């Protein structure tokens, strides 16, 4: 089994989180946004797991499981919304739904 500094694992998790964040902020396509959110959730879970591995505790993995559960529910609802959105607007561009003109 690998013996790496805990920081390194956390760095990777942070990097992934930030990539996901950039994706959320940059993409207009709702599918990409949803995927990016998945990346961020996954990165958060990863941080828990890394920490759990570091402290030799099961709680990190348990937290990951909860996050996983939540991600599953969220994806289900989110995808259903995307389907409806596409149905309504004939596009997945999030900006198509804006009504405010700033």
């Amino acid at each position, binding site marked *: 089994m690998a013996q790496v500094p805990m920081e390194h694992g956390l760095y990777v998790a942070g990097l992934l989180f930030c990539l996901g964040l950039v994706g959320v902020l940059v993409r207009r396509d709702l599918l990409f946004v949803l995927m990016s959110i*998945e*990346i961020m959730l996954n990165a958060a879970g990863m941080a828990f797991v890394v920490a759990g591995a570091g402290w030799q505790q099961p709680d990190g993995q348990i937290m990951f499981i909860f996050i996983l559960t939540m991600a599953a529910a969220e994806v289900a609802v989110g995808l259903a919304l995307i389907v409806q959105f596409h149905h309504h607007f004939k*596009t997945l561009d999030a900006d198509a739904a804006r009504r405010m003109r700033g």
Partner: protein
Amino acid sequence: MNAVFYISSLVAVIATALVVTRVNVVHALLYLIVSLLAVALIFFVLGAPFVAALEVLIYAGAIMVLFVFVIMMLNLGARGERRQKALLNPSIWIGPGILAIVLLGELVYVLIGQELPPTSGSEVSPKQVSLALFGPYALGVELASVLLLAGLVGAYHLGRRVAPPRAPSKEDP
């Protein structure tokens, strides 16, 4: 084994970066699966085989399949590609990029000052996890089940086709 960790990390980061920048949604999805598998490998290397398995089964398996279904259902292909490309205009990356870098910087700054133990490499077994899960965390499990139920109901409700499909009226563009 340390090399496996670092290589997997690199793969995960590159694949994720590619997910965010792809134009074609199917390509992006495939890179996402790669990324998730790489993360699963990291979990395994860090001594968490149970969640590694879950990552593969649920994330890379079930959730990604949902995405694929939706892509198929909506028949998204090359049609949106050109427009998507136009959207990936470099200037819109600046703000989010800066914010992400700042956030990362803050994370690094926090971690640098910490005295953290290295990962031991010994396994936290599925048994330990299960004992904790159904012991002190039982209430969380129940709540998660409720959440899943809510997700189920919600997804079912939202996924129903509204019949007849409303023509977009003039008020809502």
